[in-house]
């Protein structure tokens, strides 16, 4: 294996949602989930790491071109005493602005192993077209 392939993971400290920006609107600790966003000709795909989030505790809200992910995480049962802490547990929240290119009615979400995959299909008129030269 080359050095490039043997990439080692490092701890990435969870980033707290900045409450000074007026968000989130609910009590508790909130973190900014890490995301990848990719674009193809047909769609924009968003992958978000949401460890510990059950699909039923994820809320995806779209209004006024703003997509808000809010994910609640269940607390650890009280009879478990924390004896060593390296990370904190809290919900996740992040907002994204959708361009006019996204067909908001066709957004699709799936959740697997704590990763959300959000498919945002592009509106027909914004898909690239090949113009045939006659």
């Amino acid at each position, binding site marked *: 294996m080359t050095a490039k392939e043997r990439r080692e993971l490092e701890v990435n400290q969870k980033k*707290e949602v900045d409450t000074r920006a007026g968000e989130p609107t609910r009590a508790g600790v909130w973190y900014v989930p890490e*995301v*990848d966003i990719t674009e*193809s000709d047909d769609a924009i795909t968003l992958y978000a790491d949401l*460890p510990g989030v059950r699909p039923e505790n994820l809320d995806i809200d779209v209004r006024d071109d703003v997509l808000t992910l809010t994910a609640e995480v269940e607390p650890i049962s009280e009879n478990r005493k924390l004896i060593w802490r*390296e*990370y*904190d547990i809290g919900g996740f929240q992040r907002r994204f602005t959708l361009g006019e290119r996204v067909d908001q009615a066709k957004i699709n979400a799936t959740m697997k192993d704590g990763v959300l995959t959000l498919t945002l299909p592009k509106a027909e008129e914004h898909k690239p077209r090949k113009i045939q030269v006659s």
Partner: protein
Amino acid sequence: MALLRLFGDDDFVSRMEQMQREMNRLWSAAWSSSPMGSGVFPAMNIYDDGESFIARAELPGIKSEDIDISVAGKTLTISGNRTIEPVGESETYHRRERKSGEFRRAFDLPDLVDANKVMAHFSNGVLEVVLPRAEQAKMRKIKINTK
């Protein structure tokens, strides 16, 4: 005057709490370089419910077959690999914050555990390893006999 303004701020308490958590975070970050833990990923929390130690780590998107867990004496070792499918040729990245790669983490527990009874499960991207204390490590209640 400045003080008054400071305390008149509705956000003050939440900011203080945020600062407090930040301090805790830095403190545990400093700890993780102590001999207690070797390796850096994943971040782990250890709980104790009296019977067992419970080790938890956030490992979103990792398949359970890509995680190896072993216990020897007091040492719990977790290793694995997180792979993220690369995008196709016709796709481009707008953002790339999620990380992939190999990881290995060894952790010394405060007490001996019964390696045969260790159970691990993985749900919604969180790994949980339940490590029951070894019989000899369990606290025994001594009854005082009265004559």
